C-alpha cells in the first residue's frame, strides 16, 4: 500500500496549553508529513476534517496525536483500508506532567515535557512508516461442525445447544450409552423455583432430545484417538473405546529426548504410533471442540481417621447414591463434609460447593426411606450458592435432618454401629453420634488429571499445559474467561472444568458451545479469538533465515506452532492468539506481524532523540504491556500523578513479544536504560497470554549477562510487575528505576 500521511494534533484537553504545538508540527514536517491541528480532534468536526483529507487528498494513514490509544478507538478507525497511528500526548505527556517543585521550575519542566511530546511524534511517524495493513489469514475451507467429547449432562447440553444454534455436532461418548454420571442418580437437585424439592432425574429427556436431533451424530463406545489441525480445520481420529490405535496421540518428545532416541539411549515412547504431523485420511473434520469429559469420584482412603476402607459402613457419596438408587438406605446416617480433623478446616479435595448440596440431597433419601430417619450433616463449610440457598433452607426445615459445623475427629465401630466423634460444634459440646452409616463427601476429580484426555496431536504434546499448577484442571484464565483453555478452539465445560452441579453444568455447557461457535466464526473471518478478539493480523515467518532453533515452537503459550522433521516451524494461524511471544523469542528476528514488527518497534526506539551533551537528560525506553500496565499508566495520568519525563513508553502486545534486539537497539542508540512493565507472573500469574511476562523476565536475565560482558551494568535493563489496579504505585516504580539509572550515570556508549 502506498501511504499518504496526515498528522492530526489535537490541542484540546490541555494539550494546546501545555505544549509547543508549532514544535510538534515541525517534528512531523521533518518526516515530510503535513500536520493539522484541531481544538477537539475527537469531535464530529475534528473527525470530519480527517475524513475530508482522506476523501480529497487521498490520506490513508492518519497519525492521531491526541489522547491515549485506549480511548476513542472506534471514532478514530476510518475503515479497513486506512491505518491509524496514535501518539499519546494527553495521558502520556500532559496529564502526567511533572509538577513544579524546588529546584525544578516550570520552564525546565516545560522543556522536558516538550522533548517528550516531540519524541512521541517521532515514534508515531516512524510507526506509521513501518506499519502495514493487516490481511486476515483465511483457511481454504472451513469446517463448521463441532466435536463434543463426553455424553454426560455437559456434553449433551453443549451438543443440544450448538445444534439449536444451527451447527452440525458430533458427540463422542466412551460408554455404551449416553447420560454419564447422571444415569446413576436416584433424584436430582432442584433446577427451578421454588428450589426446595428434589426432582425426578431428567437425564433421559436430555438423552432423547440429543438422539432425536438430526444435526447431532452420536458415537457411543467411541474414543478420540487424536485431534490434529487447528480451529476451523481439526482432524479427529476416532477409535473403539478401550482399544489402542496407531493414531493414538503421540507423547511429547522434547529436543533433548529426540537426541537420546536418535543415539539409542532412550526408547521412543511413540514407537508404533503415527508421527504427530502425519495426516489421517480417514479423520473426521471439525471446526472446534467442546471438552465435556467430566470427572471421576475422588479417592478418600488417605483420610484414615474416618475409617474409609477399614470400617464396613463408611462409604463415599458416590457409593451412597448407588445404594440409594438400588434400594433403601439406613435410618441413621452421618455425612462428613470436611476431613481435616483438627489439622485444617478444608473440605475434601475437588469438592467446590457440589458436595454440600449432594449431602443435602442424600440426607433426604434417609428421611424418605425411614419414618424415623435421622441424617446428620457435619460440615466446616456449607456452600449453597445462588438459588440453592433455598434448597439448603428446605433441607434444614426437615425434622430429621440435623446440621452443625463440626470438626470430625474420628469414626469408630461400636457394637455393629458406627460412632462419629465431633468437636467444636454449634451445640457447644463435643458430640458422639451413633449411626448406621457414614458418608464421606468425596470430590470430583477432573478427567484431565492423570490422562491427556484431549489427545492433541501437537508439537507441545497431547495434553493441556501446567496441569499440575491447577490440580489437574486445564489452565483457563478461570475467573475472566472460564471456558478458555490454552488450546485455541478447545473449550472445557462441566466437571472437567470445575466441580459443578447440574444447573451450573448446563449454563457452562451453553457457554462453551457458544465459545466454540464464536471460534469457528473468528477462524472463518481470519481474526483472533480471546483475548485479542477480532485482531486481523497474524505472525508471518521469513523461513529462509530460520535456523530451526525451535524457540518459537517451544515457547508459544498456546502450542500454535508445529514443526517438521528438521524443526522448521509450521504455523497454524487459527490456533494463534496474536500475542507475539514467537516474535519476541526469535533470535533471527524472522517473525513479524504486518502492523507489529521487529523493525517497526526497533525503528521507533531508534527515533527517540538522545541528547549526548546533557547529563541530566537521560533517556530510558519502557516497553509496557498494553493489557494491564499501560491502562495503569493511563489511570495514573487521569489522576494527575506525575510520570517521569525521561522515560519513553512503547505499548507492546505482551512482554512476551519484546525481542531483545530492541533492548540492544536502545542501548546502542545511546539510551541509558530499558524497562519492561508487565503482568505478574508465577503460579498466580496475571498475564493475558499466560507465559509472556515470565518469558520476558528470563530473556532479560540472559541479556544481562551480555551487557556485563560489554562492561554495562545489567541493572540498566529491568522487568517490573504491575497489576492493572496498581496505578497508584506505577509512578514510584518507574521513578525508582530511573533513580537507579541516574546512580549509574549515563550510558558510556552515548554518542558513539
Amino acid at each position, binding site marked *: 500500500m502506498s501511504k499518504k500521511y496526515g498528522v492530526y494534533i489535537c490541542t484540546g484537553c490541555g494539550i494546546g496549553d501545555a505544549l509547543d504545538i508549532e514544535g510538534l508540527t515541525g517534528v512531523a514536517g521533518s518526516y515530510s508529513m503535513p500536520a493539522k491541528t484541531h481544538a477537539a480532534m475527537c469531535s464530529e468536526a475534528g473527525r470530519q476534517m480527517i475524513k475530508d483529507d482522506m476523501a480529497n487528498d487521498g490520506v490513508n494513514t492518519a497519525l492521531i496525536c491526541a489522547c491515549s490509544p485506549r480511548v476513542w478507538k472506534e471514532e478514530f478507525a476510518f475503515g479497513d483500508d486506512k491505518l491509524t497511528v496514535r501518539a499519546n500526548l494527553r495521558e502520556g505527556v500532559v496529564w502526567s506532567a511533572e509538577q513544579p517543585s524546588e529546584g525544578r521550575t516550570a520552564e525546565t519542566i516545560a522543556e522536558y515535557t516538550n522533548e517528550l511530546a516531540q519524541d512521541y511524534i517521532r515514534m508515531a511517524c516512524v510507526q506509521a512508516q513501518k506499519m502495514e495493513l493487516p490481511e486476515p489469514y483465511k483457511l481454504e475451507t472451513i469446517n463448521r461442525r463441532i466435536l463434543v467429547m463426553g455424553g454426560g449432562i455437559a456434553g449433551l447440553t453443549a451438543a443440544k445447544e450448538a445444534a439449536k444454534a444451527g451447527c452440525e455436532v458430533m458427540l463422542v461418548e466412551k460408554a455404551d450409552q449416553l447420560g454419564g454420571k447422571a444415569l446413576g442418580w436416584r433424584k436430582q437437585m432442584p433446577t427451578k423455583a421454588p428450589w426446595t424439592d428434589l426432582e425426578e432425574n431428567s437425564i433421559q429427556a436430555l438423552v432423547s432430545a440429543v438422539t432425536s436431533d438430526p444435526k447431532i451424530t452420536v458415537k457411543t463406545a467411541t474414543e478420540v484417538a487424536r485431534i490434529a489441525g487447528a480451529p476451523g480445520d481439526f482432524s479427529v481420529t476416532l477409535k473403539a473405546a478401550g482399544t489402542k490405535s496407531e493414531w493414538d496421540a503421540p507423547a511429547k518428545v522434547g529436543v533433548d529426548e529426540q537426541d537420546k532416541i536418535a543415539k539409542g539411549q532412550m526408547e521412543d515412547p511413540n514407537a508404533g504410533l503415527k508421527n504427530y504431523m502425519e495426516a489421517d485420511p480417514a479423520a473426521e473434520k471439525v471446526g472446534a471442540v467442546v471438552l465435556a469429559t467430566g470427572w471421576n469420584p475422588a479417592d478418600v482412603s488417605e483420610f484414615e481417621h474416618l475409617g474409609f476402607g477399614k470400617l464396613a459402613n463408611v462409604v463415599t457419596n458416590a457409593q451412597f447414591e448407588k445404594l440409594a438408587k438400588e434400594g433403601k438406605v439406613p435410618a441413621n446416617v452421618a455425612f462428613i463434609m470436611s476431613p481435616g480433623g483438627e489439622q485444617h478446616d478444608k473440605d475434601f479435595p475437588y469438592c467446590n460447593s457440589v458436595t454440600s448440596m449432594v449431602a443435602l440431597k442424600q440426607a433426604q433419601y434417609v428421611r424418605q426411606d425411614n419414618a*424415623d430417619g*435421622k441424617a446428620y450433616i457435619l460440615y466446616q463449610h456449607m456452600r449453597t450458592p445462588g438459588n440453592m440457598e433455598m434448597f439448603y*433452607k428446605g433441607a*434444614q*426445615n*426437615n*425434622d*430429621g435432618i*440435623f*446440621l*452443625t459445623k463440626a470438626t470430625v*475427629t*474420628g469414626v469408630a465401630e461400636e457394637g455393629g454401629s458406627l460412632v462419629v*466423634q*465431633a*468437636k467444636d460444634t*454449634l*451445640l*457447644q*459440646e*463435643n*458430640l*458422639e*453420634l*451413633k449411626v448406621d452409616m457414614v458418608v464421606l463427601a468425596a470430590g470430583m476429580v477432573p478427567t484431565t488429571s492423570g490422562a491427556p484426555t484431549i489427545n492433541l496431536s501437537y508439537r507441545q504434546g497431547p495434553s493441556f499445559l501446567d496441569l499440575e499448577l491447577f490440580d489437574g484442571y486445564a489452565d483457563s484464565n478461570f475467573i475472566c474467561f472460564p471456558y478458555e483453555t490454552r488450546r485455541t478452539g478447545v473449550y472445557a465445560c462441566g466437571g472437567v472444568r470445575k466441580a459443578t452441579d447440574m444447573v451450573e453444568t448446563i449454563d457452562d455447557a451453553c457457554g462453551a458451545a457458544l465459545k466454540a461457535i464464536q471460534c469457528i466464526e473468528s477462524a472463518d473471518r481470519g481474526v483472533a479469538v480471546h483475548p485479542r478478539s477480532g485482531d486481523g493480523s497474524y505472525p508471518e515467518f521469513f523461513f529462509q533465515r530460520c535456523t530451526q532453533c525451535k524457540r518459537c515452537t517451544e515457547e508459544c503459550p498456546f502450542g500454535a506452532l508445529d514443526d517438521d522433521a528438521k524443526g522448521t516451524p509450521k504455523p497454524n494461524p487459527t490456533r494463534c492468539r496474536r500475542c507475539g511471544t514467537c516474535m519476541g523469542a526469535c533470535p533471527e528476528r524472522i517473525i513479524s506481524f504486518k502492523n507489529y514488527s521487529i523493525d517497526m518497534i526497533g525503528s521507533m526506539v531508534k527515533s527517540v532523540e538522545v541528547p549526548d551533551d546533557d547529563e541530566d537528560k537521560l533517556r530510558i525506553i519502557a516497553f509496557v504491556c498494553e493489557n494491564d500496565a499501560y491502562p495503569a499508566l493511563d489511570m495514573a495520568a487521569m489522576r494527575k500523578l506525575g510520570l517521569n519525563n525521561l522515560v519513553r513508553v512503547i505499548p507492546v502486545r505482551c512482554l512476551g513479544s519484546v525481542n531483545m534486539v530492541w533492548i540492544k537497539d536502545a542501548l546502542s542508540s545511546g539510551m541509558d536504560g530499558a524497562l519492561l512493565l508487565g503482568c505478574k507472573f508465577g503460579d498466580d500469574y496475571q498475564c493475558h497470554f499466560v507465559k509472556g511476562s515470565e518469558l520476558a523476565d528470563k530473556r532479560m536475565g540472559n541479556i544481562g549477562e551480555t551487557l556485563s560482558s560489554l562492561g554495562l551494568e545489567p541493572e540498566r535493563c529491568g522487568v517490573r510487575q504491575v497489576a492493572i489496579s496498581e496505578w497508584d504505585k506505577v509512578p514510584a516504580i518507574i521513578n525508582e528505576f530511573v533513580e537507579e539509572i541516574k546512580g549509574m550515570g549515563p550510558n558510556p556508549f552515548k554518542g558513539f
Partner: protein
Amino acid sequence: MAEGMRVQPDLEFIKYLKSAGGDTLKKCYQCATCSVVCPLSADKKPFPRKEMIWAQWGLKDKLVGNPDVMLCHQCGDCTAYCPRGAKPGDVLGAIRAYAYTHYGFPQGLAKLCSQGKNLPVMMAIPALLILAVWYLAGGMSLPTPETIDFGMFFDAHKDHPTLVGVLTLNVVLIDAIFVPAFTFAVFSAYKGVSAMWRDMAAKLPAAGNFRPSVKQFVVDFLVPAVKEILAHNRFRQCGANRNRVNGHLPLLLAFIGLFIVTGYSLVRKDVIGSFVEGLHGPLSMADPFKLLANISGIALVVGIGILWMNRSRMEEENNTTPTFYDWFLIGEIMAVGVTGMGAEITRLLGIPVLAYLFYFLHLVSIFMLFLYMPYTKFAHMVYRTFAMAFEKYRESSFVKAE
C-alpha cells in the same frame, strides 16, 4: 479424645414444638442475632441461640427444666430481629408449653390441657359438675328481680338461706367445689415446680454442699423474685413489645385485688357470717371492698383486652404464630372478667335469667382457671416465679461458693 455428648434427637419433641407455635424452629441458622438483642443472654451463654439448635436437634432434656427458657418473657425482640424468620420467641413459648405438660400432675389432665381439640372436654368438666350440684341441691329456679342474690344460687328457696350447721348451703357447696379444685391445683403446681427445680439444680455445674433453709429460700430468693415481678422490670427491658406492661401490670394487680376481695368475702360471709346475722347477701356498692372488686374487675377486662389486641396485632404482622396455648389463657381470663362483670350488672339491672346465666358461666370459668392453672399458660405464674428464684439461687453463694 474427650468424651462427647451422646446425641439422640427426639423427633416427637420436634414435631410437638412445630405444632405448638415453634413451626419455624428449623429455620434458625445460628447467626446469634437473637443473642445480641436478648436481655437475658450472657457471655458464653448465647441465649436463645443455643436453645434454638438444641430444639432443632430435638434435645428435649436440655430444654425442659432449663431456667433460661422459663425466664424468657417472650418480649419478642429475638423474633423481631431474626433475619431468617425463625421466631425464637415462639419456639421458647412452645418449649414452655411442653414443659408445663411434661411436669404436669396428673399426666392425663396435663395432656388434656395441651391441645385445643380438648377444649370442649375442658369446659364440660366444670359445667357438668356445677350443673349436677345445682340440680342435686334443688336450687334450679330463678329468683324475682328484686331478690337476686348469688348467695342463694344453689339454694332451693331464694328468699332465705338454708343452713347447714352454721354455714349456709350455698357457702358449703361453693367451698365443696372450689376449695378442692384450688387445693388440687396448688398441689399439682407444687409437684411440677419441685420437679423442675430438681432438673434445674441437676444441671448446675457443681451442686453446692449447702442447701438453703426454707426461710432462706423465701427471704433470699422467692421474695426478691416476686418483688421483681411486681415491678415488671423485665418487661420494661423489652424493645419490640414494650406496651405489654400496660396490659400485664393491670391484669396482675387485678388478680391481686380480686384475691383480696375473695379472701375478705370468705372471712366475712363464711366465718364471721356464721355467727353474725345480716352479713350474707351482696356487698353494698359503697363498701370499700366492693369498690376494690369493681376496680379490679374493670382492670382485669382492660388488661386482658390490651394483651388480646397486642397478640392479634403481632399475629397480623406475622411476628408470631397463633397457638391454643396462648389463646386459651387470654380467652379464659376474658371469660372470667366478662361473666363476672355481666353477672354483677344484670343483677343490679334485675334480670334474673341473665344474671344466673352469667353467674353460672362465671363459676365455670373460675373453676377452669383454678383447675387447669398448672398445665396451661397460667402456669407461668408459678414456674416463672420459681425460675426467677432459681436464677437468684444459682448466682448466690450456695452455688457459687468459690
